């Protein structure tokens, strides 16, 4: 059992949720409540990671993270280390790969709020930020919760993108799913099996938690 890999995986999962959910709230809310030019293209871009082979996504991210790219250069100037094959790089890559899992459920959650309810909130004198915090977020809560769980679970299971962008550095970029592959390559079936079971348990726990929390929210919406 590779405890460090489990640690990297969990940190990556929590980190991606922390980075992605606020961004998803903003983007999902914008997509759900506004009409603008290029909205269709933006929605397609958000969905791209769903259909693109992870290796292709990983390839482009690696190019974008490289020392010769503006992003890679800027990161190196500030942090003093390369973005590629580092934990921050992994976090960013994982956020991009999980983008649709965060944005889409949140967008659907906001879209499910009747237009009149939003309008009523405005007519109650609530400024936009308060409508968002008091009315829209509580009503879109099931969608937001789904986004949190899917983002976390998808990050734990991500393999292709992580292998491309992060490599396999113990304690830094070696996640549990990479470690399982690693163990299998080394004919350590028992180690791989144990870690696979841990991932399965985490996934089950996350989904159970969603169901329970979703049910607690249910009657409040009555």
């Amino acid at each position, binding site marked *: 059992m590779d405890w460090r890999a489990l640690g990297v995986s969990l940190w990556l999962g929590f980190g991606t949720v922390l980075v992605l959910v606020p961004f998803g709230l903003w983007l999902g809310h914008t997509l759900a409540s506004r009409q603008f030019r290029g909205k269709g293209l933006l929605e397609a871009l958000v969905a791209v990671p769903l259909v693109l082979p992870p290796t292709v996504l990983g390839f482009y991210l690696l190019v974008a993270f490289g020392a010769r790219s503006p992003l890679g250069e800027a990161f190196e100037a500030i942090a003093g280390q390369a973005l590629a094959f580092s934990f921050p790089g992994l976090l960013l890559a994982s956020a991009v790969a999980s983008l649709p899992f965060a944005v889409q459920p949140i967008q659907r959650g906001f879209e499910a709020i*009747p237009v*009149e*309810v939003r*309008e*009523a*909130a*405005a*007519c*109650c*004198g*609530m*400024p*936009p930020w*308060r*409508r968002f915090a*008091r*009315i829209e977020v*509580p*009503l879109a809560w099931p969608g937001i919760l789904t986004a949190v769980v899917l983002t976390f679970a998808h990050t734990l299971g991500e393999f292709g993108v992580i292998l491309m962008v992060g490599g396999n550095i113990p304690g830094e970029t070696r996640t549990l799913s990479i470690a399982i592959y690693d163990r299998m390559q080394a004919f350590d079936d028992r180690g791989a099996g144990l870690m696979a079971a841990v991932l399965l348990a985490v996934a089950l726990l996350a989904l159970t938690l969603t169901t329970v929390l979703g049910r607690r929210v249910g009657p*409040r*919406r*009555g």
Partner: protein
Amino acid sequence: MADRALTVTARQAAPIPLDVQFTCKPGEVLAIFGPSGSGKTTALRIIAGLYSPAHARVFCDGETWLDTSAGIMVAPHRRRVGFVFQDYALFPHLTAAGNVIAALGHRPRRERRARAHELLALVHLSDRHDRRPGVLSGGERQRVALARALARDPAVLLLDEPFAAVDRVVRRRLQEEIDEIRHVLDIPLVLVTHDFEDVVRLATHLLVLEHGRAVAQGPVENLTSRPDLAWLRDAIGLGSLFQATVIRVDSSRGLAELAFDGGTLVAPGHACGVGSRVRVRIPGREVILATTAPAGLSLHNVLQGTVTAVQFEEATDRAIVQLAVGGIRLLAEVTRDAVSQLGIVVGLPLHALIKSVSLEVLPTRGGHVT
């Protein structure tokens, strides 16, 4: 007090054709009446700032809320509007009190809960403040929506088909409550409806919309007795509507005497206390015309008037005779034959005979029907 009035002008060709201009003063109830798709709700949405047509101006309470020519557009949350939506649009995750508190953002935090309870008491929902909309009945939801609309101390109250989703008994009680509340508030009240009963019970002024155009507007009493508004007539039946005061109640005979600008009428005694204001509607087909005052009839109501217009209906072979009775206009629907037999022409003095039971008497302002 003209500056506290609501004034709206809106014009555009598409996507929703509109051509309206109206004013509603404090204490007045303007009913916007018309078939569905006539732009009634759009008019309300323009006032609230939820819709902005190509050319429009909205003034309320001395402020300019919208002026497309000057590029002024005040956001909905900055307009002091109380809006009761058709489906109430309550916040499902908040309690009744929570819904009302949501609209109390302009008051100090410590006052909000007490004020919410006060408003819920005003709409007779004191025992329901901790319930969520999901467990409230239709009438109760409507009341929460009303309390929420009143919560922000609005400069204008807008009601979009407020009684569409409640049954007849609840509807009547709510109409009375709104009528009482509007006298307390003294702000303009705009009501969108397709039910003429709402108009008769609540409205002081009427705006009739057809395809976004105002086809008629003015005080309710004038409009409802105009025979040329075919559409309005189809909706309500031809008749006259006017204000009267109860001057005597004879409970032993079950009769009440009503004074109006043109004489007195006797109606069945369900009208309440002496001095109370009522609205009287006389359906055109219930009026009998005579050239001489009749004798030996079981009639209480014989009004004297002068013919001001005679209008023939091609389709039905009927005629509508307009009589000036004091300050009111009385409409009588008679056959073409009767017109020639009695020799009815403009200027002829006539007697109008009306059975007491044909009078529709509706209380206004705190009146009660038993």
